[in-house]
């Protein structure tokens, strides 16, 4: 085993800030949606709008970070090992099989993560941000008489925003669970807090496409 710094300081800040903001936006958003009462409607609207602005600022920084550091490449989809990753979650995990994809600084995400996160980044988040902005500002073009860009009804904007919210909440539920499927139940969480993760030196392991198993060549147990 070796300790590797997977997540640097900005990445962790971005992740936790984004997590807090999205959970807060989900709570306030559902209250605005009429699902429950907690903050009070007026406060919920105010908090939701404020948190949305902060999330957008954070997204701008994150985009900058992704492109300047080259980390955007983490989300390039790959179909290599996708099947193995699916098989791991469906069967391998119950047998205690090792993760099929090596994780390191250059490739933090497994093939499923790549696809899902890419989907979030290029589809769900843009939809939420743009529908959210229209939600906040849709009245102005109509008031100023700019009919060309005027949206006459909130309905389509609101319904799309709600759909996106449900998808994000479903993502959070599964994401929170999948955190526990690392090397140990707590290792992924620990990595996202401290930045460091113990990664197996897996020169000794080889993925066998036929059996879709990771085979350990040398019978060697490592403890840390």
């Amino acid at each position, binding site marked *: 085993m070796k300790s590797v710094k997977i997540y640097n300081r900005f990445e962790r800040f971005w992740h936790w800030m984004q997590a807090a903001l999205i959970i807060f936006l989900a709570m306030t958003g559902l209250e605005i949606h009429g699902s429950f009462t907690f903050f009070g409607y007026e406060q919920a609207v105010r908090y939701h709008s404020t948190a949305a602005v902060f999330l957008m600022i954070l997204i701008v920084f994150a985009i900058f970070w992704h492109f300047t550091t080259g980390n955007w490449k983490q989300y390039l989809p790959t179909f290599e090992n996708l099947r193995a990753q699916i098989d791991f979650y469906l069967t391998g995990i119950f047998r205690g099989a090792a993760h099929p994809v090596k994780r390191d600084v250059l490739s933090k995400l497994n093939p499923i993560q790549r696809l899902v996160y890419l989907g979030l980044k290029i589809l769900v988040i843009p939809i939420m941000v743009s529908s959210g902005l229209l939600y906040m500002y849709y*009245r102005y073009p109509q008031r100023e008489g700019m009919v060309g860009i005027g949206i006459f009804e909130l309905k389509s904007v609101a319904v799309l925003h709600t759909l996106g919210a449900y998808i994000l909440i479903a993502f959070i539920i599964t994401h929170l669970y999948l955190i526990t499927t690392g090397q140990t139940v707590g290792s992924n969480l620990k990595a996202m807090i401290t930045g460091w993760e113990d990664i197996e030196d897996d020169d000794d392991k080889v993925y066998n496409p036929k059996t879709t198993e990771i085979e350990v060549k040398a019978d060697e147990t490592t403890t840390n």
Partner: protein
Amino acid sequence: MKNNRFNPLGVPIFIGAMLVIAVVGQLITQQRESDSLERLKIQYAKPHQVAVDHQKLPELQVNFKAPQDVTRACVSCHTERHKELLNSSHWKWAREVYIPGRGVTIVGKKNMINNFCIGIGSNEVSCTRCHAGYGWEDASFDFKNWENIDCLVCHDNSGQYLKSRGGAGYPDSQTDLRLAAQSVALPTRDNCGSCHFYSGGGNNVKHGDLEEAILTADRNVDVHMAFDGGNLECIACHEAENHRMLGKLYSVSSMNRNRMNCEKCHGDFPHSQNILNEHTIKVACQTCHIPEFAKVNATKMYWDWSQAGKLKDGKAYSEEDEDGNDIYLSIKGAFKWEKHVKPEYVWFNGTADHYFLGDKVDKTKTVKMNSLNGDYRDRDAKIIPVKVHRSKQIYDCCNKTIIQPKLYAEEKGRGGYWKDFDWNIAAKLGMEAVNEAYSGKYCFVKTEMSWPVNHMVSPKEGALTCTECHTRTGSRLASLTDFYLPGRDSNRFVEIIGKILLILSVIGVLIHALMRIIASKKGGAQS
């Protein structure tokens, strides 16, 4: 290397950053008092300076015999004012308007009917008690004779000028005209209220938001006119230029012009919070700031003319509720009164249509005596609060028209329903007076009439809160379904998809976790 692995300061820094953001977020949305309100307070705190003391004028040191003598005395100095009056709504009770589908037409109390005491045709002697004139007894009244203008009903400040019941606008014989003439000044709440509070035959019958309680209101009743509030007179808002008053009521108006509105003083964006200002694009001020009408005394909500005519020992009688409101009158029928009424809400763009005498209407449907136009997509339309007065009133079943009956007569045997209790004769005489046909067969039809609620504004603490409208159930705007209202509306399809998605996520996670636990126990595999 090991020492640099994890900086324990990171967690407090992170929490600190979150707190700073929360505080900043709170600060940038802090409320502040709007400047325009301060300006208005200063502006209206200036007392009016009287330029002329009418007590000192020799023209008014006269024991006037007839009220027209007073008018002549007024015009002897104010030499052109009577011409303004002859063109005013208070005199003409009619306006020339354009209504789509009807063209240019005349609308006013002179020719429109309502679902209270119905209309003035054949009842002028009683109704014109509130006319700013003398002697309008029937359709032959001369609207060009300025000597019959009643200056005093609006300008008397002696407090003892009273028009007599059934007197066609003439003052009571006990009135001291000399005292009244010497007291004249700008119209006060008492002047305006002497008619506008008592329309429909009693206090607060018609409007629901204009009644004598305004004279003694505190801020909670009427923030503008309260003695401990703005203490404004009616004319502070309803300014007049050349005797044309600003503002009108859509029971007898049709066009989007000469309207009084809150924005005139308060501006288009009076709130410190932008999200509230955005509401003003589609929501009228009154909608949130007048959460209820009939705040002090009850107003009439339902009038069933078909119950009229019941007699006890051959005599008319009345029944009252515990507050002293008539709930039954032999001459008028049965009533329902309500206090602290939540308004109904409609889209309104400032134009209205009306039931015109002679319009044929379907008896099986509720007839709208006035219909306020507008919908969500109408850029001029806003949501306004209305008092809807519902009624059952007399209708010609063969001609399919609403009947103008003769109600008032000085004595029995003249065909007035209030004396003779004979609908057939009352209908015949009434319809004759307005030149409409009557088949001889009458029945009763359901009608409704919308009265925009504009007065008795609550202080801002009393304004509606968000969830009065933005709520799934019991929204005040439940009946306005032509737009998406956050908190009230949702898309059924998206709700089902979304909920299935969440349920499947939770179930999937639980099953997977359970299988892992079982597997780890069985095989002792690493968790």
